[in-house]
């Protein structure tokens, strides 16, 4: 994966979090390692984030990935999405 595509992916993840994450901070304050659950994301919101990610990247998160640690920051979401996108290639 090229750096450009990686950056685009992070922008997409951030856009999805802004729309569905119900975060208490603005997108500009959100760092790649900010704990999303600490800034307001509920379990219910995280499900909507997962659904939006699955639709956007045309992936399905396997059950082994459906745990808190995978969705607790932009960086961890990116790692999971990259794994699935690359795995599909």
């Amino acid at each position: 994966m090229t750096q450009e595509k990686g950056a685009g992916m992070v922008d997409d993840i951030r856009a999805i979090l802004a729309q569905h994450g119900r975060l208490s901070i603005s997108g500009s304050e959100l760092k790649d390692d900010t704990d999303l659950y600490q800034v307001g994301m509920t379990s219910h919101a995280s499900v909507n984030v997962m659904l939006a990610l699955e639709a956007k990247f045309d992936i399905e998160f396997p059950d082994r990935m459906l745990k808190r640690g995978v969705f607790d920051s932009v960086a961890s979401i990116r790692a999971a999405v990259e794994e699935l996108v690359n795995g599909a290639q």
Partner: protein
Amino acid sequence: MTNLEKVAAIGAEVAGPAAASVDREARFPHEAIAALKREKLMSALVPKELGGMGVGMIELCAMCETLGQHCSNTAMVFAMHQIQVACIVRHAASSPYFRDYMKELVEKQFLIASVTSEVGVGGEIRRSICAVELSDGSLKLNKDATTVSYGEHADDLLLTCRRSADAASNDQVMVLARKGDFTLSNVGKWDTMGMRGTCSPPALVSVRGVDAQVIPDFATIISHTKVPFSHILWSGLWSGIAAGAVGRARAFVRQQARANPGTTPPSALRLAEVVSTLQTMRANVHDVAAECEALMNRSDQGTESLTSIGFGLRFNNLKVSTSQLAVQIANQAMLICGINGYKNDSPFSVARHLRDAHSAALMVANDRILATNASILLVLKDG
């Protein structure tokens, strides 16, 4: 005597005989709780190296079930206390303050009440309005709670609140309030259909203390510990209520059979049916308790698995299923006993069991839990 045998003796000799008066007078089951304290069972979950018993989920669940057979209120108070202890044992063990507290708990057998509800959050445990105020090492917290079970009878309280005045509503911590450092004023009554002895009116709580009494990260505590322990221990005691009702139906059918040897009473068929349902209910509780204990015993305390949404679904399914079966089974027991089951003053009465069992669907409303599961099933594939 094993711990479970001690609990069984307290159930049969202390909690059971007092159950009718606890229910009728809506009073705290003080004699049974005092007996449990005498056997040092309030610190059953405290690790052995700190002086406790270090019991696991399976044994603790069996204790709740056993108490539930005799007195639902005693079982619920015991279960709720253990859930608070579990939060401390599993999430504050690295704190010197809480290590000392656990040793003191072993010695003095404190009863800890939970204060998670709050006016204005719509029943959502994962939201708080009140916030802990920390300054110069001291702590202040005021909470307007909708229901505080046995607050007046507790030694200490464990409350949820926001981490600070500027924290998000779900950025929560827990605060331990020590006897003498808090005031609790009931601002309503607890006159209910069942579970009358848990004494759970709305209350205003005001706490003073030191900053070491804060346990950070309630988000983690709830998924690792509070939900697993609550749903399993509650399900255990609801199985106990169901078993208590079935026990009366069995005695009733035996009495009918003895009156007319050689003829199986028609009610025996219904008894066979309800005993089978009870077995299914218990198997479900034991299955989840055993799986949970195995995970918690792992070196990583099963953190990864317990926080997966697949496991969350299982805990939720257990709670919804057992809360419904408790009512169904108590009701079947009443139909078997007939008018003797319906009467309050008959030895075969299951009226109290039935009224108590109805609380199960409301303690975290089943619809709220099913809505969570509905959401989980949008992304979970197999688990």
